[in-house]
Every structure is written in C-alpha cells, then in structure tokens.
C-alpha cells in the first residue's frame, strides 16, 4: 500500500563511483527499518497466537482428562438409539450417530433448497412491484418489505408455528382439499407411486431437456447468421412438458396415487409435510424475500436510464426491453448480494432447532451432542458444514464476478 518513495530514491551521491571508500553510513536501527520491523511484528503475532492456541488446547485436554470424558470420532459409528421425526433416507433407532449427521444435513439442505426457491420467486416479484407505476402495488410491496425486514426471524418462525399452525384442527377434523389434508400434524398429500412403464416417461423428460438445449444452440447460431428468430423458450416448454405427458398418456397412465387414510391416530400413506417444516419454510421465505426484493430493486435501479431510453428509441417493446436490456444488466449487480442472501438463508435455517424441525443443528448439535457429550467434535463438525457451504459460495461468487465483469476500455 505505502509506496516507499524514500527507499527507491536515487543514491545520495548521484551514482558517481566514489574513489575513496565512504565512511559507512549510519545504518538505521533495525526497529526503524520497516521491513525488519514488520517481520518482527509478524513473528511476535505468530508466537502470541501459538501461545493462545496452545493454552486453549492444553486447558481443554486437561479438562477432558480430569472429567474422564472421551474424545475422538469413534462415537460416529455407535448406535444412536433415538428416533428422528423426519428423514429423507432410511433411518431407524439402530442407525449410527454418523447417520444422524447425514439425516440432519439432508434436512438442512432440503429446507435451504425449498427456502431459496420460494424466497427468490417472491423476492423478485416484490422487487419489481416496488418499482411499479401502480401506486397501490408499489406501496403494498414497500409495506411488506419494511414490515418483514425489521422483525427478527426467530419471532416470525414462532409466530407461524405457535400462533398459526397450532390453531389448525386435529387429524379427525382435518380440512380436506383435492385429496390432501391439512391439520395440526402438517400437510398430508397423496404420494405418487410410479408403476411399470413410468421409466419411459422419465427418459422422455430428460430427452426433452437435452433436445431443448440443442435447439437453443441451433437457434442462436441461426440468428447470428441470418437474423431470423426462433421461439426457443416456448418450444422448450412445449417439449419438456409435452413429451413426458404424451408418453404418459400412451403408456396407459403408469402412475398410481397413494391416498392418505385416517387410521387410528393419524393418516397412513401419502406424504406428510410436518408443521415444523412448513413454519420454518414460510418464515424463511417471507423474511429472506424482503431482502431479495431490496437487492432486485437496487439492481434494476442500477441500470442507467439511458439504456432503457435507447431501447425505446430502437423501438423495442416494454417486455423486450425488460427481458433483453434491463434484466441481464441488473443481474450483474443482483447476483452477488443474492448469493449472500442464499447463504444467509441456509445459515438461518439452523433456527430450526427452536421449533424442533430435525435439521443438522437440531439433530446433530442437539440430540447427538447431548447423548454423547462430545461437544467439541460435534460442534466442530457442524461448523465445518456451514463453513464449507459458505466458502463454496464465495468461490462461486468470485468466479461469477470475474466472468461477468464489464470489460471497459
């Protein structure tokens, strides 16, 4: 940072080769030599850090030893012996503690993906709405953003969970719609059960995706050569929806529905989405959407007015201007803060522990930690997961920024 002008200065005697040996110049004291001083300082810092870490580790080891506590990761292979309310993979009480880590991690990923999906859609709609010409819509959007941004997320989670979902009826008095049931045990939906021949539909679906990609490439090439345009988007949608649908119809509807039925305490069959997941999902999406909306608004406003005016002057329609001029340029500004919002959402999903949604923090840093007492290993593993996620995100962001950087003169 500091460009040392004094150091790179000319030699005192103008470079003429001296005949006689000049008396030795008084060497500056070493603590006045910036290079040596910085070296010394760094060595001291390292020593101090090393000392602090050494004491912490020493203390920890002595404490663990004195208390006869075990250390190491052996516990991961021991039988867990407790149940988990919701698991995306096969988990029983006989599974190991290591499995509880996987189950929690998958549940965290599930809520993060669901939250990111919903928050993005909602956030984009609100961000655009806040800039709408329609006074009522703009004000409504502003009101939403200002309300939900300034209330703690945990409070919102509690509100949805305790004040809203808890007031739903019992399973016996469930609200029913379209074969699904909603009650205070969650949302119970019929589960699709693929039968023979359903594989064909899946193959058709992926084939359509591949075909769409080729069509897009072909159309881009053709447009560059001839200027003719091809409705790529509509064609792709048509293919991706149409092909599997046709195959599905022709192969004789190979899909059964497993309808939930009220048996004993609760519904048997179908898919149950537990209320903890619903509450967390609602709160995370609503809260994060208000931040994403602000990002989107800032991004759109960052596109200079000259751009839209130029597009209008070229005779582009409003929709085309948005699609081809404003959004691509706004995205450059929006993506970095958007990624950090995604990261925040993922980190915030750890609040699941407050309402008992079995995410990583609740299952692993909660129950597993209690049952094994191995706080250090468990917390370290949990932190490592989030740390890895955020490092990956920053790498992606840096890569993206480098790629999308405006190349100016």
């Amino acid at each position, binding site marked *: 940072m500091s460009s040392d002008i004094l150091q790179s200065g000319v030699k005192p005697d103008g470079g003429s080769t001296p005949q006689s040996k000049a008396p030795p110049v008084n060497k500056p004291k070493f603590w006045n030599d910036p290079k040596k001083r910085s070296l010394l300082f760094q060595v001291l810092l390292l020593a101090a850090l090393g000392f602090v870490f050494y004491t912490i580790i020493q203390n920890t080891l002595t*404490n663990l030893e004195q208390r006869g506590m075990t250390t190491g990761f052996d516990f991961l292979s021991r039988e867990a012996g407790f149940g988990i309310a919701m698991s995306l993979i096969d988990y029983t009480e006989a599974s190991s503690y290591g499995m509880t880590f996987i189950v929690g991690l998958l549940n965290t990923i599930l809520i993060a993906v669901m939250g990111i999906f919903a928050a993005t859609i909602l956030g984009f709609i609100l961000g655009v709405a806040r800039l709408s010409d329609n006074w009522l819509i703009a004000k409504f959007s502003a009101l939403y953003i200002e309300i939900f941004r300034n209330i703690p997320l*945990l*409070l919102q989670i509690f*509100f949805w969970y305790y004040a809203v979902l808890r007031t739903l009826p019992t399973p016996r008095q469930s609200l029913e719609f379209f074969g699904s049931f909603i009650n205070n045990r969650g949302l119970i939906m019929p589960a699709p059960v693929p039968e023979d021949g359903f594989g064909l539909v899946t193959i058709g679906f992926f084939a359509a995706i591949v075909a769409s990609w080729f069509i897009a490439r072909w159309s881009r090439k053709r447009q560059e050569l001839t200027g003719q345009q091809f409705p790529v988007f509509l064609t792709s949608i048509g293919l991706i929806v149409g092909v599997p649908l046709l195959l599905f119809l022709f192969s004789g509807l190979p899909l059964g529905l497993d309808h939930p039925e009220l048996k004993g305490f609760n519904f048997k069959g179908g898919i149950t989405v537990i209320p903890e997941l619903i509450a967390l999902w609602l709160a995370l999406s609503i809260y994060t959407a208000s931040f994403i909306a602000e990002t989107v608004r800032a991004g759109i406003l960052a596109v200079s007015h000259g751009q839209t005016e130029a597009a209008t002057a070229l005779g582009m329609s409003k929709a085309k201007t948005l699609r081809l001029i404003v959004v691509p340029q706004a995205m450059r500004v929006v993506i970095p803060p958007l990624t950090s919002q995604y990261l925040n959402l993922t980190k915030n999903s750890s609040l699941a522990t407050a309402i008992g949604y079995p995410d990583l*923090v609740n299952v692993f840093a909660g129950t597993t930690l209690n049952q094994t007492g191995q706080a250090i290993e468990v*917390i370290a593993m949990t932190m490592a997961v989030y740390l890895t996620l955020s490092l990956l995100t920053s790498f992606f962001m840096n890569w993206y920024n480098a790629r999308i950087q405006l190349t100016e003169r």
Partner: protein
Amino acid sequence: MKYEIQPTLPPPSSMIGVVGWLRKNLFDGPYNSVATIVVGYFLISFLVPTIQWIFIDSDWIGTSRDACTSGGACWVFIANRLDQFLYGFYPEAEHWRPQLAFIILIGSIIWLVLPQTPKKGLVATLLLVVYPVIAYFLLYGDLFGLPQVETHLWGGLTLTLVLAVVGIVASLPLGIVLALGRQSDMPIVKSVCVTFIEIWRGVPLITVLFMASVMLPLFFPEGMSFDKLLRALIGITLFQSAYMAEVIRGGLQAIPKGQYEAADALGLGYWQKMILIIMPQALKLMIPGIVNTFIALFKDTSLVLIIGLFDVLAIGQAANQDPDWIGYSTESYLFIALLFWVFCFSMSRYSQHLEKKLHTGHGNRA
C-alpha cells in the same frame, strides 16, 4: 392584426386533481386497473378485520383473562406482564437502574443524531468508552451501596439491549484491528485476519452461541467460570467483530488512494496516517454500515433464548405458556414484533438518511 398569445388552457379535469392522480397511479391501462382492484380488495379484506381485532374489539384494562370478553385482541395480557417484558426478573425495587441506563443511552443517541448539537465527538467517545462502565455498574450493582443483581435475573428488553449494545461497542475496536490487518501488506497478519473473519462469517450465530455455552468452559482452566451471559457476550462479540471488520474495510476502501499517498508523502508513519488522515474520513462513511450491522445484531439477539437466556422474545414465550393466559400468543408476538420493528425501522431510516447525506464527499469512486 394583433398577434396575441392566448393563455394556455387548463389540462382536462381527468388529468389533474384526485381523478388525475388516480388515473395516473392506479388505473393506468387495463392491466394496472385489474391489479389495483385485486390488490385493493385483498388489502381491505385483510386490513379491516385486523384493525378491528387490534383496536376496536380489543380489551385493554383488567387483571385477569376474565377481562377479555370482546372477542378481539387481549392487551390485558401484555399490560399485566409489561414489567417482565421490559426488565425480565429484575427486582422491582431496582427498576430505576435499567431505566436510567436506558435514558442515558437514548439521550446520547438523540444528541448524536440531531444535526445542530455541539461536541458530537466528545459525546460519541463518552458513549463508547465511559457509558459501558456506568451501565455495567448501574445494572450489576455491588458498588456505592447498590444491591447486586445477578445476571440470570436480567431479562426482557433490558437484556436484548445489553446484548446488542455490548455486542456492537465491544466488536468495534476488534473490527478495526481486523480490518486494518486484512489490508496490511504483512502476509502473516493478513492471512490470520482473513482466516478469522471468514470463519466467523461462515457459521450461523446459533452454533457460535452453542460453542459459547457448551465449549467455552472447556477452553479455560478449571475454576475459571464465567456466567452464561458473559459467555454469550463473548460469542456475540467475536461473531460480530468479523462483520464489523468488513464494514470498516468498506469504509477504508472508499477513501481515495490519493489520501493514502498524500499521507505517505508527508512522511507520516502508518499509525499517524491511519489515526489522523484515513480513519476520521472513513468513520463518517462507515456509520450507515455500522447502523445496518447493529440492526442485524439487534434482531439476532433473540437467538439467545435457544441457550436459555431470557431476552424479550423468551419472556414472551414463557408468558405464552402461563396456563392462566393460554391462547393469547398472537398478542405477545405482535407486541414483541412491534418493539423490534420500532427500533429497527427507525434505525434503518436513519441509516438511509445518512447514506443520502454522505453521498456528497467522496461519492465518485468508479
């Protein structure tokens, strides 16, 4: 022939006044009209019952749930527990202490926010350096004949403010050191600071709090035990300092390079350069960022209920479980939400206002 300019005609009545405004802002074309009607209908059908529930059908005076008969909100519940919401289990005779601490805090903040007041720098320094000491002795006591009040009795809004204010004030110096370290040209210092910042920014606050409540005691030799509040504060401060460092780094980077070079050219040493030239300019630019991190932290303090401290939200949760008042959880959530909202909204408005005001100085940094 006289050539006379006619006075301009007024615009058609449908373009001005109320009608004009409505046409321009609400019914500008068929799409917008439909949107307006849909959103308007939704708003009215939602707002009217809500307002009725909150204000018109609600009960405000009474001592037990029998007073809540109107079918609206039961604010009696909140009124009866207001002391707990504000002070937690702080002994009633001593309530004046958190009150006084709060008044001093708000007073100095108002002093700093108002544009015309003199000696801002002095007040800010007092607030950052002297006030924490005063507030500590006020709240904790055990001095000048003030009875001691154990920290596990602290709660409610008092505790929320303690956590947020201490978190910010304590993380400020640490954040400055980290930010300078991150910008340093000494490789080891730089990498130590970068690692520290990235680690704390990469993990959720809740795991930091878990660490503070479960692991921290293991790090210290036996017999050194801090109470839970102090442990939470240590965790929050470390966590917050990483965010603070990034805000401060942003402020430092906003100072044009010429300032650094000019300071070097004058032959100022590193610390002189920073303290006399860079920091005073950068601090001004950082205030909005600091206010924003303060808002984030203020909201995040509610997480301490997970490690068993009684902040305002935890008090609300406990109140909701009181069998005498079952079924009024919406009221307490609304009340706490309002508390947080008032604080956060006013702070965010202030920070936006500052950003606009500061947009002059070194604005042009392409």
